[in-house]
């Protein structure tokens, strides 16, 4: 899978989309819309193994690795959370392990979701991001193991 945009370009386009709104309600409205469009996880992966701990709502995240890139599908029982996962997936899914591990997600701050990143907030943006990076690290370790 070849991605059309660089990590920076996707983030900038998200910032653009959000910049039209300064009201919180409008921002949540787009999150809700994005949540509806999330690439849905196959129901058979909505099991404990793929459940992310530390969220007030449930989040399932399923990774796939083709030797080069990691793709993610996910779901959540709360729609706003689904919108947040959708954003993370839009930015990170389909990228190389290296890119995911090193990714600096500045868009979170710029669209005003920073408060959702703080560890005391229980929506688990931080846990989702950590989990995505962990998968990438695990695949990378696996990959370098095989090539030796």
């Amino acid at each position: 899978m070849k991605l059309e945009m660089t990590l920076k370009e996707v983030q900038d386009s998200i910032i653009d989309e959000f910049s039209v709104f300064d009201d919180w309600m409008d921002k949540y409205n787009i999150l809700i819309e994005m949540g509806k469009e999330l690439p849905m996880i196959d129901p058979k992966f909505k099991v404990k193994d793929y459940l992310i701990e530390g969220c007030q709502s449930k989040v399932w995240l399923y990774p796939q690795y083709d030797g080069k890139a990691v793709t993610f599908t996910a779901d959540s029982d709360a729609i706003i959370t689904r919108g947040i996962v959708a954003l993370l997936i839009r930015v990170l899914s389909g990228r190389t392990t290296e890119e995911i591990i090193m990714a600096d997600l500045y868009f979170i701050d710029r669209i005003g979701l920073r408060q959702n990143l703080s560890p005391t907030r229980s929506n688990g943006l931080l846990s989702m991001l950590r989990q995505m990076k962990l998968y990438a690290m695990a695949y990378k370790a696996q990959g370098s193991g095989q090539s030796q």
Partner: protein
Amino acid sequence: MIDIDVVRSDFPVLHKKVYGKPLVYFDNGATTQKPLCVLDEVRKVYTDYNGNVHRGVHAMSDRTSEAYEGAREKVRLFINAAKREEVVFTSGTTGSINAIAYSFGERYIQPGDEIIVSEMEHHANIVPWQILCQRKGSVLKVIPFNDQGDLDLDEYLKLLSPRTRIVAVTQVSNALGTIVPLKEIIGPAHSMGIPILVDGAQGVQHGFTDVQSLDCDFYVFSGHKIYGPTGIGIMYGKEKWLSELPPYQGGGDMVDRVTFEKTTYNELPFKFEAGTMNYAGAIGLGRALDYLNELGRNEISDREKTLLAYATERLSSVPGLRIYGQSASKICTVSFLLENIHQYDTGMILDKLGIAVRTGTHCAQPVMEHYGIDGTVRASLCFYNTIEEIDALGTGIEKVISMFS
């Protein structure tokens, strides 16, 4: 009658804005806001006379000790305990229950003994007893509740047995708002000689609690939920129990005479107050109780009943809204879910409208399991809330529904 504008002007936080909107604070079950007089009182401790309690010949220590013991007397009067010896300061409800579970367990619990709690307890009144059960090989029994949110008293009577050593129940369910008919719990237990602990964390700030007329053996609550400071709480115990129980913490002040061969303990209540206590918190709590007495506890109660009736009616009118906890006897807490909308989504949007509610399991997971849900949205009100704020919640909920449908 309570003059609501005057009352609200006593609470600085209530005038804050969040996200540019006026704050509607409906999370009083988690913690209450503090009136200025309490803040002033705590400040005065440190600006006017601070010294360690019971530990000096000097004037500062004397004055602090006097204010601290004065606060104990205010608590005694507030819950109508018979003696000041029966009122012990702790760090809060959780601290009190852990202390009692430990000390009572040491003294009275044998393998195979039974402890009764209810299905609607806060985790603070479940986990300490589970730890005790693990330590002593005793067994936890649970009084179930029905879907309306009332305890099943027939089942309770069946659970009482010659092996029952203590019954620990809440006065009010934090998740459902149910006021538990304590007399019907205490009477049958006492007729078998079984003592009762009442978790008053959600009860003491509403209406009247008289520990003598209830005849409960232990009564515990937290200062921060009754308009006082955080980090202070109360463990009331009848003298006959407290004098029998061993202390659960050792240290300064709780001792009478210390040698390396043998230490004898101080008299009540100091036997249970090891180390430097949160005296500023205790003095602040005393002032909070004065404040409630000045407002009038009947007046507070009446106002809260009006608010509950209005909130129940307003929220019931919202299509697809289900209220969890419909007991005929409730404090002004309304726990609810919207059809097909996650409690977390509801809470996030209400937050952005300036409305503070709690979402999740409210530290009462067995209650959620009872209904087969993951959590609820809880609006917990108190006397300083208003009808207009309830309307704002109603409108906010309607906005949530329109956003998610």
